[in-house]
C-alpha cells in the first residue's frame, strides 16, 4: 500500500517540502528502505520513490518499536517510571533520567543539593561524549568505513560504561537519578577514575579528528549534502546538534540554565554551511566542550548530601498541577510533560522525543539528492528508535 498522499502534499508554503519533478517519462521506482536495514539505526522504514538515483518522494514510517510508554507511565508510580526512561533513548540513559527528574522537580518544587547537581553534570556530559562519539562512528560506518572509527569510539565508550557500572551498578540501564538528587554517592576513588578517563579523552578526540576531518572521501560525500535552512529548522522544531549545525544559536543549557550549567564556561559551536559535514563537526566540537565541563565539575565538586532530605521514596504524591521540564539531551531537546491529579500515578505522562521531531525535516533534506546520500543524511540526524516510537 502506498504511503504517498499526492494531492494534499502539494500545498504551497515556505515550510512545506519542495516538489521535485522527475525528468523524463517512465515509472518511479518505489523502494522501502527498512525496517530490516543495516543503516537505519533501528527498525525504521523510509518509503522512497526514485527516478533513477534521485529521490522524488520520501516518507518515513515508524512505530515498529512502539511500546506505548506513555500509557505505562499512567499505570505506574512516578518512581516506577524512572527505569523505563532509561529505555527511551538507550544510548543516553542518564540524560533521560535527568530530564524526568527535572520535570518532577519542577512539578513539586523540590530542591536538589549541590553535590547531586555536580554529579548530574559530570554524568550528563560523559553521556554526551559517549553519544556523540558513537553517532560519529555510526555515521562513518554508514559511509563504508566498515567500523574502524566506530570501534575507536567504542573503546572510549567501554571505559565510560565501566565508570557508570562502578557508580550505578549497570552499564546502560542505570536508573540513577531520583526526584531531589541522585541515588548513590560517588566515592573519591570513582572521581579519581573519572579524572583518569578524562585525561585520555582529548587524545582520543585528536585521533578521531586526524582520522576523519581532512579525509577527502568524507568531505566529498558530506559537504553540500542534506542542507537544512535555519528558518525551516526552527519552524520544524528541530533541536540539538542539528539545529546548531544550521547556524541557530539555541542550546538549552545556556538558554534555560537548568541545574548549575550557568557556572560552567563552555562554548556552543555553530555551523555555517548547514550540511552533513557541519553536523558531524559540531558533534566533534561539542565533545571537546564536554571535556572542559567535566574537568571544571571535577575540580569544583563539593561534599554534602546527594538527596533532598524531605524526598520520599514511597507514597510520593505530588499536588495537582502540570509541568513541562526539558534538558539539552545529546540528541536534542528532551522534555517531559506531566499532569498530576494528586494521586500516586501521573494523570498524563508525555515524552517530547527529539529524534521524532528532528525527523520532520528528513523529507526536505533528502528530496532531490541521490539515494546513497539518504543514508548519510539520515545518519546525521542521529536518531534512536526507542525515543522515536517510545
Amino acid at each position, binding site marked *: 500500500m502506498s504511503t504517498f498522499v499526492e494531492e494534499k502534499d502539494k500545498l504551497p508554503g515556505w515550510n512545506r517540502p519542495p516538489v521535485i519533478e522527475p525528468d523524463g517519462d517512465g515509472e518511479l521506482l518505489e523502494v522501502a528502505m527498512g525496517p530490516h536495514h543495516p543503516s537505519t539505526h533501528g527498525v525504521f522504514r523510509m518509503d522512497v520513490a526514485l527516478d533513477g538515483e534521485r529521490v522524488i518522494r520520501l516518507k518515513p514510517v515508524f512505530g515498529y518499536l512502539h511500546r506505548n510508554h506513555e500509557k505505562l507511565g499512567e499505570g505506574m508510580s512516578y518512581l516506577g517510571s524512572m527505569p523505563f526512561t532509561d529505555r527511551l533513548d538507550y544510548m543516553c540513559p542518564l540524560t533521560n533520567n535527568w530530564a524526568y527528574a527535572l520535570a518532577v522537580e519542577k512539578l513539586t518544587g523540590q530542591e536538589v543539593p549541590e553535590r547531586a547537581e555536580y554529579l548530574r553534570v559530570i554524568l550528563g556530559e560523559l553521556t554526551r561524549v559517549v553519544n556523540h562519539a558513537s553517532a560519529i562512528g555510526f555515521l562513518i560506518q554508514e559511509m563504508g568505513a566498515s567500523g574502524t572509527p566506530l570501534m575507536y569510539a567504542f573503546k572510549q565508550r567501554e571505559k565510560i560504561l565501566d565508570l557508570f557500572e562502578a557508580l550505578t551498578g549497570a552499564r546502560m540501564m542505570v536508573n540513577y537519578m531520583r526526584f531531589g538528587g541522585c541515588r548513590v554517592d560517588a566515592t573519591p576513588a570513582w572521581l579519581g577514575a573519572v579524572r583518569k578517563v578524562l585525561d585520555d579523552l582529548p587524545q582520543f578526540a585528536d585521533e578521531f579528528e586526524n582520522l576523519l576531518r581532512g579525509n577527502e572521501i568524507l568531505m566529498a560525500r558530506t559537504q553540500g549534502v542534506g542542507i537544512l535552512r535555519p528558518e525551516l529548522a*526552527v519552524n520544524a522544531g528541530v533541536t540539538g546538534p542539528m539545529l546548531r549545525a544550521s547556524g541557530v544559536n539555541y542550546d538549552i543549557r545556556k538558554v534555560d540554565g537548568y541545574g548549575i550549567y550557568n557556572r560552567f564556561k563552555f562554548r556552543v559551536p555553530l555551523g555555517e554551511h548547514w550540511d552533513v559535514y557541519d553536523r558531524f563537526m559540531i558533534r566533534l566540537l561539542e565533545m571537546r566542550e564536554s571535556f572542559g565541563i567535566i574537568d571544571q565539575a571535577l575540580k569544583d565538586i563539593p561534599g554534602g548530601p546527594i538527596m533532598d532530605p524531605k524526598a520520599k521514596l514511597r507514597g510520593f504524591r505530588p499536588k495537582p498541577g502540570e509541568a513541562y521540564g526539558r534538558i539539552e539531551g545529546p540528541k536534542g531537546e528532551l522534555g517531559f*510533560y506531566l499532569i498530576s491529579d494528586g494521586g500516586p500515578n501521573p494523570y*498524563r505522562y508525555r515524552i517530547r522525543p527529539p529524534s521524532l521531531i528532528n525527523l520532520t525535516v528528513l523529507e526536505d533534506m533528502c528530496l532531490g539528492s541521490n539515494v546513497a546520500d539518504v543514508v548519510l543524511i539520515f545518519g546525521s540526524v542521529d536518531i534512536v528508535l526507542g525515543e522515536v516510537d517510545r
Partner: protein
Amino acid sequence: MKTVEEIKAAIEAAVPGAGVEVVPNPSVSGQHSLRLAASHAVEVATFLRDDAELALDFLSNATGVDWPDKEVSEKVKVTRTVSKIVDGTEQQVEETVEETRKHVVPGCLEAVYHLFSVAKKHGPVVIRMKTANRTDQVHLPSLTPVWRSAEFQEREIFDLFGIVFTGHPDLRRLLMWEEFKDHPMRRDYVEPDDFEYEPTAHDEVLKRAQERRAKLSAVVSGQEGAGA
C-alpha cells in the same frame, strides 16, 4: 517575557473575537496556559508566531490529553407539594427533601501546545484547545501550517487519542499500523486479550488469566464428559 494575562490581552487586541481564557496551573511550576477557541486558533497562532515581542517561532511539544466523562452526584434540596394527613384531614403540604442527583459531565479531548522563542530565548507559553466531546465532535484546527513541527505530533495525537485535525496535510496514523481501529491512549482503552503466558501475573491480568483458565477447563471437562 509577558505574563499570561498580558499575552491574553495582546491576543485579544490583535485578533478580535478570539475566545481566549487563562487556565491557571496550581502547581509550583507556574506554567499557566491559555485556552483558545477552535474558531480563531490558526489566526491566534499566526499572531503568536509573527508578533515582534513574543516571537514564539518554536513549537516544542504538541500532545493530547483525554478527560473522560465524569459522573457527578450532588445533593439538591427539592421542595415538593405532597398530600399528607395532618390533624386527621388530607392536606397539601410543602415538603423539603434532600435528593442525590447524578448527572454526567461530558468529557473532552484536549490538545496542548508548548511554545518557545528561539529569537528571544523565552518560554514556555502553553496553549490548549478542547474538543466538544469525545465521540463525534472531535475536530480541531491543525496548527501545522503555522509550525511545521506539529506535523508528526498531530498525527500522533490523531493516532493515539482520536482528535481529527482539519487542515493537516497528511493525517494518517503514525505509530500504530494503518488498519488499527481503536485509540490506545484514551483512558477507556481495553487491551486485546492476547497476553502471553505470564508466570507472575498480577491484578487485572491475573483475573483474566484465571477466568480464561476456568473457561478452558470447563470446555475440556465438558468434552470429556460428552466423550465418556
